[in-house]
């Protein structure tokens, strides 16, 4: 009987959805940070790989041109993130209004995790892009 009571206590304790929600939000932020880190480093490596720009009549224009192909690929990723954001905002709004509705908070966490996974896949795709 005591074991059953302890098990029920643990189950009821696990029922709170908020730690999972917070963890999902933090993992989403980590994915965004990883994307920005990749972008930051890649641009500088890209410019270093264009020594001809150093002697170009207009180095700034030359570096901008060197950036262009990558910027096009990256813009697809940013557009994908932009397209996911409204649904995420709406889901967060609905979950807040519902206050502790397990299904809604789980759905919100799932959306955030999907966003994070999409960002990480995008980084991998950018790494693989020529």
């Amino acid at each position, binding site marked *: 009987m005591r074991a059953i009571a302890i098990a029920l206590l643990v189950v009821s*304790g696990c029922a709170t959805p*908020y730690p999972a929600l*917070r963890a999902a939000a933090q993992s989403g932020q980590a994915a965004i940070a990883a994307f*920005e880190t990749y972008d*930051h480093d890649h641009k*500088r490596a890209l*410019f270093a790989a264009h020594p001809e720009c150093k002697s170009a009549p207009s180095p700034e224009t030359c570096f901008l041109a060197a950036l262009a192909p990558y910027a096009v690929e990256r813009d697809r990723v940013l557009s994908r993130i932009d397209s996911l954001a409204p649904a995420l905002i709406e889901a*967060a709004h609905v979950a807040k209004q519902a206050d502790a509705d397990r299904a809604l908070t789980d759905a919100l966490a799932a959306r955030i995790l999907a966003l994070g996974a999409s960002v990480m896949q995008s980084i991998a795709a950018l790494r693989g892009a020529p």
Partner: protein
Amino acid sequence: MNATAIINLIATLISSLAPVVSGLLAGGISSEQAKAEAYAAIDALLADLGALRARVKADDAAAIAEAVGNVDGK
């Protein structure tokens, strides 16, 4: 104490201790605090997303300026 009384006692214990256990499992914090932290993290994520494109574009300009600066400083 009969079986019914024991079950009632256990039920009372569960209902009174569940929030405490829930808080402990969440890292020793209350459910309200856990909720506030979760939504604060989501708000931070949404703010991050909203400003991402602008940050990336600003870094483009910074990266080019650094590269041009390296040329100038050569």
